[in-house]
Every structure is written in C-alpha cells, then in structure tokens.
C-alpha cells in the first residue's frame, strides 16, 4: 500500500500548490475539501494490513467533517458574505507557487537531514519517506496562505491546510494516539473553523467586506 500512501501525499502536495496558484475562492474551498478527504483516508490506507475500528472511525469522522461539513460551512459563509469570489493575494499567484515549490525543496532537504525516529519498516506500512516533508510542506503552505492573502476566508483555508499537514504527520508516521484524543483534536479543528466561519459572516455584515485590510483599527497610538 506504500504506493497508495505516496499517491495521497503527492495529491496533498499538488492540491497545496493548486490552492496557492488558484484565484477563485470556490475552487480553493473544493481543493481543500478534496485534500481533507484524501488525507482523511490515510489512517485506513496507511495501515491496510491492520485496519481496526479506531482507524476506520477516525477516517470516517475526518472525511465527513473535513470533506463535507467544513466545505459546506465555508461555502455558506462565502454565499452569505456576498463578495467578489477572488482570492486577492498580496503575493501574486505565480510567485506564491514558486515560493511553495521552494519551500517543498526546503522541506525535503531538511527531512533528509533529520532522520525520523520511527523506522519506516517497523512501524507499519504507513511510514513513507515522503510523510514528514509533505507534512511540513503543508504547514508552510498554510502559513503562507494566512499571511499572503487578503480575504478572511482564505486565512481559514490556510489554517485548514496547516492542520491537514499536522494530521498527516501524526497519522502517516503511525503514531498511536488514543482515539479519544484524535477525535477531540478533530472536533476542535472543526470547531475552530466553525467559529472562524461565523466570524467571517459577522465581518462581512459589519464592514461589508471580508478583506482583513479593513481590520486595522486596533493599533498602537503613540503620543
């Protein structure tokens, strides 16, 4: 199944780059949803030979929440906000993709220098050589989206991408966290996105825009 794990990881990389390079908000939301679904399948695909109820439960929950509930919520916020559905970055799309590719190189280089404490063979089939670099790459992409995009909604997407990366790290390295904790983490993330989505809704109603540029009233006033 290692090939399938790799396929999912490569898919994650490509969706990250696509989200960085895409200008349409709706497309970005669908991309992140697709990524959520694929990453959500990792617990099952990664431990194909020893699938247990825990893995299936986790995969089901994360696919349902990240692949369907969260995108639906974000679409709702997008429709409610009723704004131009463009991403409006501070950094252009080609530049974002180039930075993304550069950070991918960086992640691969770093991971090659820092061997994982989990030996790939022994911890089960899930541990792929790509897992750690792809996880870190997703985190960097998420951060890049958060700092380089103007719309509040894209910042939520950046947070999601980042969380997908962390999830990848946890699952693909076959770390045994108790199911309750992982489920709690998942619920917290969805809760965070929910609260952020509601905040986006309030922002759009309050200032008729979801540009975070408009949120610049609170700052230090020097005498």
């Amino acid at each position: 199944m290692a090939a399938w794990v790799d396929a999912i990881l490569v898919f994650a990389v490509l969706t990250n780059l696509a989200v960085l390079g895409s200008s349409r908000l709706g497309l970005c939301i669908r991309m992140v949803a697709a990524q959520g679904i694929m990453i959500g399948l990792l617990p099952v695909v990664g431990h194909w030979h020893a699938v247990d109820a825990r893995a299936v439960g986790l995969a089901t929950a994360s696919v349902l929440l990240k692949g369907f509930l969260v995108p639906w919520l974000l679409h709702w916020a997008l429709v409610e906000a009723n704004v131009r559905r463009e991403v409006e970055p501070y950094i252009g799309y080609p530049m974002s993709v180039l930075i993304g590719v550069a950070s991918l190189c960086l992640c691969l280089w770093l991971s090659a220098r820092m061997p994982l404490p989990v030996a790939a063979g022994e911890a089960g089939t899930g541990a792929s050589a790509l897992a750690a670099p792809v996880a870190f790459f997703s985190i960097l992409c998420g951060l890049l989206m958060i700092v380089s995009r103007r719309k509040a909604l894209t910042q939520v997407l950046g947070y999601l991408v980042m969380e997908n990366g962390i999830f990848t790290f946890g699952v693909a390295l076959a770390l045994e966290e108790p199911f309750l904790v992982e489920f709690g983490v998942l619920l917290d993330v969805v809760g965070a996105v929910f609260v952020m989505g509601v905040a986006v809704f309030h922002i759009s109603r309050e200032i008729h825009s979801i540009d975070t540029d408009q949120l610049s009233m609170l700052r230090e006033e020097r005498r």
Partner: protein
Amino acid sequence: MLLTLILLPAVAGAAAFIIPRDRARRALLIAAALAHLGLTVAAGIWPPAPVSGWLALDGLGYLFLCITSGLFLCAAVYAAGYLSREEPHPRQDFFEGGQWFHNAPEAVFTGNLLLFLSCMTLVMLAHHFGLLWVAVETTTLATAPLIYFHRHHRSLEATWKYLVVCSVGIALALLGTYILAAAAARASADGVRVPVTLEALVENAKRLDPAWTRAAFLFLLVGYGTKMGLAPIHTWLPDAHSEAPSVVSALLSGALLNGAFVGILRAAQVCSAAGQGEMCHDLLLAFGLVSLGMAAVFVVGQTDFKRLLAYSSVEHMGILALGVGIGGTAAAQGVVLHGLNHSVAKGLLFMVAGNILGVYRTKNVGEVRGVLSRLPISGALWVLGILAITGTPPFGAFMSELAILKAALDAGRWGVALGYLAALAVIFVAMISTAAKMAQGSATGADPAGAAAEPAGAPPANLGPHAAARGSPATSRGQHGPGAAARVREPLSAYLPAAALAALALLLGLWLPAPVKSALDGAAVALGGIK
C-alpha cells in the same frame, strides 16, 4: 472527583444556554463558581485518584486550578452585577463617531464563561499532551464569543485576530505534541510503548530521541507561547484585552494565560527529564527578556489604560518565563508565587478598569482624571492594584519578583538580572505615573463643558458601563465627557470582588497562610524537577 470538577461547569454552561430567565442564569453562574471552588478546595484536602494517567492533580496543576477557580468566583460575582446593568437594547458606541451596536445574547455570554471554566480545569488536570492541547484550543473557542460580546467593529477585529493568531499558534503546539510522540516512538525499538502522558514520558525520558525532543519543545513553546502572550508572538493580546468586556479581560489575563503557561511547563518538565534542560532554559530566558523589553517599550506613553494593563500582562508572562529559565528551586518558588500574585492583581485591575470605563466612557488615559474623587472605592482599589502589579513592597508581587531576582543573581546571571531590573524599573515608573494622573486631579477641571452640560442637581449616575445611554441619544452625548463631577454611587457587586482580590494581594505579601504555602510548595516541587 476530577471528572466532576470538569463536568460541573460544563453542565452548568450547557444549562445556561437554555435557561430563559436572566436572573436564574446569573444565580447559576455564581452557584457553579462557588461549587467549583468548593470542589477545588476539597480536592486539596482529599487528593483525588488520577484517571488512567490522563487526568491527575499534581502540585503545579492544583495551584493554577486554585487561582483559576478563585478568580472565576470573583469574576462571576462581578459579571452578574455587570450583566444586570448592561443595556439590552442597541446603543451608541463612544468611539468611531458613535455607531450603533448591541450586545451578544446574555445566555451565550454566561454559557461560554462556564464552558471556559470547564476547559481551564481540564487544562490544569490534563497529563496527556494530546488532551492538554484539546483543552487549550477549546479555551480559545470558548473565549472568542466572550471577546465579541459588544458587537462592534473593534471587538470583531480583536476577536478575529485572537482566533487566527491563537489557532495558528496552537496548531504549532499540536505539531509539537505529535513530534513529542514521534520522539517517544523511538522507545518502541526497546520494546517499550510510551504513551504521551507526562508521567510516562518523564519516566522514560532517557529513551526519547534527543533531536526530536528538542524540536518538540520548540514547537510547544512557540505554540503555547502565542497563547500565553510571550513577545514577539503576543500581538493578539493587547487587542483582545482592550476590546473584551473588562470581566473577560480579567479572566483572560488572570486565568487563560496561566493555562498556556502550564502547557509550556509540562513540556519543560519532559524536556529537562530528557536532559535537554539547557536548551529549554535558554529559550525561556530569551522569550522572557524579549517580552519584558517589548512590554517596557509599549507601556511607556500608552494612551489606553486597558492596553496598558494588557502590556503589563505581557511583562508578567515574561517574568514567569524568565523565572523558569533561570532554573532551580528558589526560582521555581518565585515563579509560582508570582503567577498567583499576577493573577490576583491583574484580575483586580481589570475589574476596576471596567468600573472606570463605565463611568468615564473612554479608554483614553488623558481624558480620565480624578478617579479618586469621583469613584472613591474604585479609585482606591485602582491605586492599590497598580501598586501591587508593579511590585511595590508590601504586596505579594514584590516578594516574588525579589525571589526571582535573587535566584538570577545566585545563578550568576548578571546580564539577565540587569535587563530584568531595568525593564521592571521602566514599567514601574511608566505605570505609576499614568495611573497616578488618572487617580488624582479634579474631575470638574478636566472638562468644564461636560460639567456644564450636566443639569444641576442631577441624580447620581448609575454605574452601568453604559448606563448613561439609557436616556435618549442626545442625553448620552451630553454626558459624553468625563466632566460629570458628581460622586458616583458604586454598587456592591462592582467593587466587592475587586476589594477581595486587593485584600488577597496584600495578604500574600505579608503572610502566607499554611494551605496556600503548601500549595505553592507543591507547585514548586513539580517545577523544581526542571533543572
């Protein structure tokens, strides 16, 4: 027992969402806070059994649990009074040209307060790092609606920054948690399965992978440090503290920041057991000094008194980090005592700031004069609180800051001690001078136009934060200025919690009661493991 501690406020919070009557809900808030404090005290007397290694009550957790619970009771009393005086209808903002805004539903406010208490309890009790993360993140979610209680542009902005900055920071802490699990996974090569609980990790610390343990600590420090308000990742803190209702600011500063601090301390415990204490200490020292310096820069010349208090929180979080960074038992005792002192004094100050804001209707330091003559009780408490927070002798903060300084000198860290003293001195002067200007002076002299607008022989203004707006908008604009010189009658619920905290702050400086001392020692022992 432990589960009851967590579930009691959670159930009460859920109930608060559905109880329709305001009075019943406020009574529930106070009752739940009282019951929680009672349970906490009982847990100190009869130590409860840990739950499967995930939930346990150690000295450190107990101390911060006591702080949280006690502060929450004061805040609950204050909040009940505050909510009863809040205007339920839309009213005019006193900034930004007076746009209209209204409050979030009171049920949401009360319910989230109680949920926040539940999560904070979980933070203090969690010994499983994953569970700890879940609890800390949930506190973010529970407090976001609290900050957005007054539904206007500024509080929305503060809420958004708080949500994004903290969530992203905390996400890094989740990564740190997973990395810690990866570091522990190396132990499985020796045939040992190490769960990510505090006890198991400390016990098997020598088996952890050193490089990955260091990486884990770095991510946990940055992640929880964001939530704790360590500079330079404190950016959400002044905004959230200045825009939230004052009682929420008190809880954020006095309880929430401590929760994140506990997270860092847990990570430091594991790290130092694994022989990586050196790096932890250096990092914490660096973050502490930067926070102190940053706070000093922004406290000087600060024009917004709630932001002033917020930066003071950054300063004190810096002191805590610095104290842990110095290491050793003496410093540990100073740190836990200082954590207690800071929470008490800062809770007091924010509540008083709420009273001042309610009457003067401005957060600008320059427009607030003569608090002592207009609000005698709050004014006196304000002066006491400022003296306490800046570490003036009879108060507790003086003792704890001195203990940390002494530990730094004993450890031969002259540079650190010098920077620490310099920052404290600057902040002392800046805060005292600002607060003194606010407290003294004649209230009438500040704005004669405002005084003239007030009809002679007007009944004393009720001390609702925005009580003046109860009349027509025109009247409210008339009372806009700080000129209403008449002495204001202060309701009991507005000053009683603050007065209790002030008494406690004084008490802690003069004499430590035996139970408090034992709780402090317990916490210091847990911390003392960090060498």
